[in-house]
């Protein structure tokens, strides 16, 4: 269980199940909307889907440009940092992916992220703090983790998760308003289901969607660690990079929960979110997994 191929397939399978639960959740809330609110409830569904699709997929399509602006990252060329470009192009060869755009965020907190709608539009960014605090092997490990996100199409996966979570939240929200502002006025007598029974699932559904979204994000982080090792065959590099991140207490300046999930280490305070809502697995747990991979290398092929 400690080799990267097994870890990759476990994480992929778990992502699939989580996305499946997401679909079940969307289906349940839609069913509730139709059964408890009748015709006007049914009308809410396409509205919610449309609003979320437009908002999430717009940001998915332009993710590279949008994230650049939100994080104030600057795209650099080879001459600006030859060493960094060398490390990135090494990992590019190991991954078989096209060369991504490389950007630097002027920020003392060490961190890195990857974005872009597909490998051809990929962008990976490093904070100046990260570049200053890591040696070649550690930087290679971080780069491999980011390229792994590109290889695993994680911008797409998180867009799908955000869309479904958004649909659930919007439907619940609209139905709640309908309850409050006399949505039941015309139909309260014909309904099979007492309207107050609908309130509990309406409160719980968005919370469940948020939890599922966070769980998917954590899965993709574990998967990216495993894929990174499949690129470099050197778990020690990424492990010691994570140790550097774990030791560091500075917090990314331009932090925002909107972009928290794309960083290699959560830029938010650990105390700000409980473990269930966290976008990343605990860093110690990731270090332990990589240590197990070091103890049992699968370089024998």
């Amino acid at each position, binding site marked *: 269980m400690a080799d990267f191929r097994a870890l990759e397939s476990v994480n992929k399978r778990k992502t699939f199940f989580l996305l499946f639960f997401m679909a079940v959740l969307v289906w349940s809330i839609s069913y509730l909307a139709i059964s408890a609110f009748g015709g006007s409830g049914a009308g809410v569904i396409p509205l919610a889907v449309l609003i979320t699709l437009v908002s999430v997929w717009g940001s998915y399509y332009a993710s590279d440009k949008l994230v650049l602006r939100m994080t104030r990252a600057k795209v650099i060329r080879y001459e600006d940092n030859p060493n960094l470009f060398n490390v990135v*192009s*090494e990992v590019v060869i190991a991954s078989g992916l096209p060369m991504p755009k490389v950007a630097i965020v002027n920020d003392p907190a060490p961190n890195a992220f990857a974005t872009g709608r597909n490998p051809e539009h990929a962008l990976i960014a490093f904070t100046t703090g990260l570049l200053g605090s890591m040696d*070649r092997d550690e930087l290679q490990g971080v780069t491999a983790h980011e390229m792994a996100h590109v290889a695993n199409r994680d911008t797409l996966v998180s867009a799908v998760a955000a869309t479904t979570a958004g649909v659930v939240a919007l439907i619940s929200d609209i139905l709640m308003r309908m309850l409050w502002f006399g949505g039941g006025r015309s139909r309260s007598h014909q309904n099979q289901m007492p309207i107050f029974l609908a309130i509990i699932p309406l409160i719980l559904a968005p919370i469940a969607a948020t939890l599922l979204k966070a769980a998917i994000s954590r899965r993709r982080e574990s998967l990216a660690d495993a894929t990174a090792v499949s690129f470099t065959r050197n778990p020690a590099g990424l492990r010691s990079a994570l140790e550097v991140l774990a030791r560091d207490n500075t917090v990314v300046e331009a932090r925002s929960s909107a972009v928290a999930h794309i960083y290699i280490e959560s830029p938010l305070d650990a105390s700000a979110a409980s473990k269930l809502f966290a976008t990343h697995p605990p860093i110690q747990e990731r270090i332990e997994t990589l240590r197990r991979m070091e103890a049992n290398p699968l370089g024998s092929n």
Partner: protein
Amino acid sequence: MDISIIALALILFLAVFAIIQYNKLIRLNIQVDEGFSQIEVQLKRRADLIPNLVEAVRGYATQEREVFERVVQARAASTTASTLPAIAAADGALTNALRGLLAVAEAYPDLKSSTNFLQLQEELATTENKVSFARQFYNDTVRSLNTAVKTIPSSLFVGLAKVGEREFYEVDDSAVRNAPNVKF
């Protein structure tokens, strides 16, 4: 009437199935070719880098003639090798010779601190990593192709696609194989 529709659907299904398997084999075979040309690109890069590196070190370490000769010979052998095992063997020998050259450089503090040498050292470090990742990527693609050639159902279409098992790129040096990250 019904039977002919079923037969038609079956034929269509089999045709699509055959096309998918055929394309899979062709695609994997092309990936192996691409993987190998990536190795060649990186080996060429390294070969181009060596004369400069040797010159830089020779300026400081004039008496280490033996080490320079080994590097120059290994480089010559690697540029003339043509078959895959020969290329791999020459590649391994050159990696070893370069390691010797850099070990020599360690003994000359003036050389080690010259910017020209530091730049060459970084170039060589990244090229060595690229060579080793290109080898690894190539071997991964060979592994996928060989698995497809040997397992059903893709193995049934090997004759049609005119694709066969390919050779792994094996560098005969345990130190090289265990060290994808060269630190100089």
